[in-house]
């Protein structure tokens, strides 16, 4: 009986804490926006807003995938390699065969590759229950190796016309005093994906399973959740989303460079963790992730705006990550101290 009560108390605390963390993030975000607007009048304009949205599109889609993996208790560092692979191989395929798949065909082709590559990750991880970081480090090397050795390693400046057609399309264009503010059309898939992932996580059995596996893989399997199937599905979804992001990245950049995307993994993982997802699994929301991505993008943007050299950007993101996870770790420690079994106390005695 008392455990049931405890659990109820815990869920109540959880429910208050979840929104609280996001609340803090929102406050930090607002403070940053107000501070930047005072420091630089150029900041508080529609064109800055649209520029930040534009720069958030690709990281947001990656982050949604990483969110899924992190909630399931894993970590994936191969998504950038999958994005490069799917995007670049789709373009090379079209250029070499001379067949233009069109915009939607290109997406479909890339997503199919993403599903296969993500499926490889999911299969290896779920079949042998291997450490996800090390498996995805291995597959990252393999995906990039296959791409660069057998698909191509050259910079492509001219996209197939189907993909190129979407490069300069905007949903909304307004003239402002400082210039033209453009809202890129690729905002739509990013928003749709965010909504779909939020729906998947909060309203479907699959979402429940992902949280359950991340909470405790053994209990989840005893409770009758199909761990393997869910894990494979998670990595397949991540692969598909990474592929989508890869194509969008190349469309927006109007070029394809197979070595460009890899290396951005940390920023994405940092954003997701800042958004309140627990690296131990079982916790995380789309709302928090969106806020986390926006925070990282705004900080990157404002560092440039207030004249901080771009060399400091990497350090800034590192510090941000350390502060974010540090706060998370300390609050977890406090929570652990509150429980009846005080491990630290025993160790001290």
């Amino acid at each position, binding site marked *: 009986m008392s455990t049931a009560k405890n659990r109820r108390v815990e869920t109540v605390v959880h429910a208050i804490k979840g929104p609280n963390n996001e609340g803090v993030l929102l406050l930090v975000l607002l403070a940053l926006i107000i501070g930047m607007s005072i420091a630089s009048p150029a900041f508080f304009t529609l064109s800055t807003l649209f520029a930040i949205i534009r720069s958030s599109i690709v990281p947001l889609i990656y982050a949604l995938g990483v969110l899924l993996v992190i909630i399931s208790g894993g970590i994936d560092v191969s998504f950038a390699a999958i994005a490069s692979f799917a995007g670049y191989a789709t373009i090379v395929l079209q250029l070499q065969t001379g067949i233009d798949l069109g915009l939607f065909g290109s997406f479909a082709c890339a997503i199919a590759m993403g599903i296969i590559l993500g499926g490889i990750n999911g299969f290896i991880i779920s079949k042998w229950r291997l450490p996800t970081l*090390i498996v995805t480090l291995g597959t990252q090397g393999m995906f990039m190796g296959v791409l660069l050795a057998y698909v191509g390693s050259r910079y492509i400046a001219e996209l197939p016309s189907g993909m190129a057609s979407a490069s300069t399309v905007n949903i909304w264009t307004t003239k402002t005093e400082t210039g033209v503010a453009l809202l890129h059309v690729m905002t739509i898939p990013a928003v749709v994906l965010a909504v779909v992932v939020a729906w998947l996580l909060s309203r479907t059995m699959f979402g429940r399973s992902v949280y359950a596996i991340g909470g405790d893989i053994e209990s989840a399997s005893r409770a009758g959740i199909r761990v393997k199937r869910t894990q494979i599905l998670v990595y397949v979804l991540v692969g598909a989303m990474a592929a989508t992001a890869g194509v969008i990245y190349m469309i927006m950049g109007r070029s394809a460079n197979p070595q460009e995307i890899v290396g951005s993994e940390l920023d994405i993982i940092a954003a997701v963790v800042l958004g309140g997802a627990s690296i131990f699994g079982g916790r995380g929301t789309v709302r928090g992730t969106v806020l986390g991505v926006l925070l990282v993008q705004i900080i990157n943007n404002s560092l440039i705006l207030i004249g901080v050299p771009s*060399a400091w950007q990497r350090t*800034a993101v590192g510090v941000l990550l350390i502060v974010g996870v540090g706060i998370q770790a300390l609050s977890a420690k406090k929570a652990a101290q509150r429980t009846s079994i005080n491990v630290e106390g025993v160790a001290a005695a």
Partner: protein
Amino acid sequence: MSDSQLTLKQTNHRVDEWTKHILARVHSNHSILRMMILVVVAFGLFALLSPRVFLTGLNMQNMLLAVPEIGILAVAMMVAMLTGGIDLSLVSIANLAAITISTSFTALAAHDKALAENLGPALILLALLVGLAAGAVNGFLIAYVGVTPILATLGTMQIFNGLAVVWTGGKTLYGSPSGLTLFGKTAIWVIPALFLVFIAIAGVVAFLIGRTPLGLGLTLEGANPVASRYSGINSRSLLMRSYLLTGLLGAVAGIVFIARNPTASADYGASYVLLVIVIAVLGGTNPNGGFATVAGVFLAAMTLQVVQSGFTALRLSTFQYSIAQGAILITVLIVDQVNWSKVFRRNRRTSRA
């Protein structure tokens, strides 16, 4: 307590523990044996496929010269993995140490060339201190703040790397004490001095892990952190010391970088992070902690060096080598997992079915 007082359950448990203990030993020997076979097979394969390039004395010497920097980093990674952690910031620490030597030497040499040369040992000491400081940051975050090693070192990797970029302006630095460069070129008989440094460091770390209370503590902490805490082990100071050691070894690797090639840059060896993890895991280190041998890691470093030199001798690209690395890593993980599960989980599976 006499045996007759033991219940059946306790006896079973005791037998279970015994078999596990014996099997763990077999596994450790098995992993070293496996690595020895791998290194011989790889060597034989490339010697057969490309004897003219691969079997030359120059190639052999190049292999011995190239292996220390990777090998020392892998030994450091092994120390972090022994406690169930990981150190992704190792390569950044090594670069930071190399940059420290290069920048301070250049700054000193601008004033007084002879003084800068004479201060070589002091510069090396300074680089080691930088490594210790970086290790202390990692250790503080992991042991005292309680951040997971992956995230802590992912963050510090970015910070150390960012500092190196700011410090060097993203450029490659030239200049280091000529004594250090000379040492890098020295060979005793035909064996490069740097390789002897690697052997010495591997020996010291093997002694630390196998023969000292620190090593025992690290192993217990990795095997079962909760149990080790209950048995009165101060896990905080232990983890702190483990990351100090890791940082120090990272700095040594940085000194080896600059001794081999008198340049330093922020992005040197970016691909080493994966390689070093591959070597540590390949050498029988359990990524979940609790098991590692220096001999295994040493042999794994030699194996991968043989594979890399072999790939070069066969004129295969670095991209193909990257595929091989990933494939070797995952294959070894799977092979290990299959062995373990067959041995340990058979009972559980049959009872569940």
